[in-house]
């Protein structure tokens, strides 16, 4: 299988792959780094937003 890198298409078997998982307050991040002879030749990332934004206002009574 060939992988797109900054050096063009490279055989996957030649690449060292490092997965990095990060947990944040409101996101889960998964980055994948691809190395060829120690050089970073590709980096992917997925950010999963865990919770969106809320416009919040408490209801009140006028009486």
């Amino acid at each position: 299988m060939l992988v797109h890198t900054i050096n063009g298409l490279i055989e996957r078997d030649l690449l060292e792959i490092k997965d990095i998982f990060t947990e944040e307050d409101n996101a889960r991040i998964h980055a994948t780094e691809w190395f060829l002879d120690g050089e970073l030749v590709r980096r992917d990332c997925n950010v999963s937003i865990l919770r969106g934004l809320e416009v919040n206002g408490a209801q009140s009574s006028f009486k």
Partner: protein
Amino acid sequence: MANTAAVPKSFRLDLLNGKHAFGTSVVRAGTGADTFKAALYLATATINADTGAYTATGELAATGNYSAGGATVTNATAPANTGGTGIVAFWTPSASITWTALTSSGSFDCALLYNSTNSNLAVGVFTFSAQSITAGNFSLTMPTNDLTTGLIRIG
């Protein structure tokens, strides 16, 4: 019978559907949903609650498969107020926002959601730890579209 002060449940949903204008409004071309986009910003940028509309300042450069203005958000699911007591209205893009074969012009940590149909008005600012992409893919996966986690919620 008794009366109860309240913001009607339908009001919040109507806000998301653009049915109220308490100030000067805009002339709309139709009744369809607006187009929303997401732009990525360098970690050195200043995008925050004072950002009223999309700006090119601090945005990733239009290189490495990134286009100025960012990517169009898939919007196939209408706002809703289902679940719970119906008080919270919510909306979430119906698909992840993805850039492929991207090489970012720098480290970025922010996505601005904005309305490209209506003067590029800002909708939300989302931040995460700084990331750089090299000849790879970057995606923002959306939260579950419900009253507790939906991307935009009016509660």
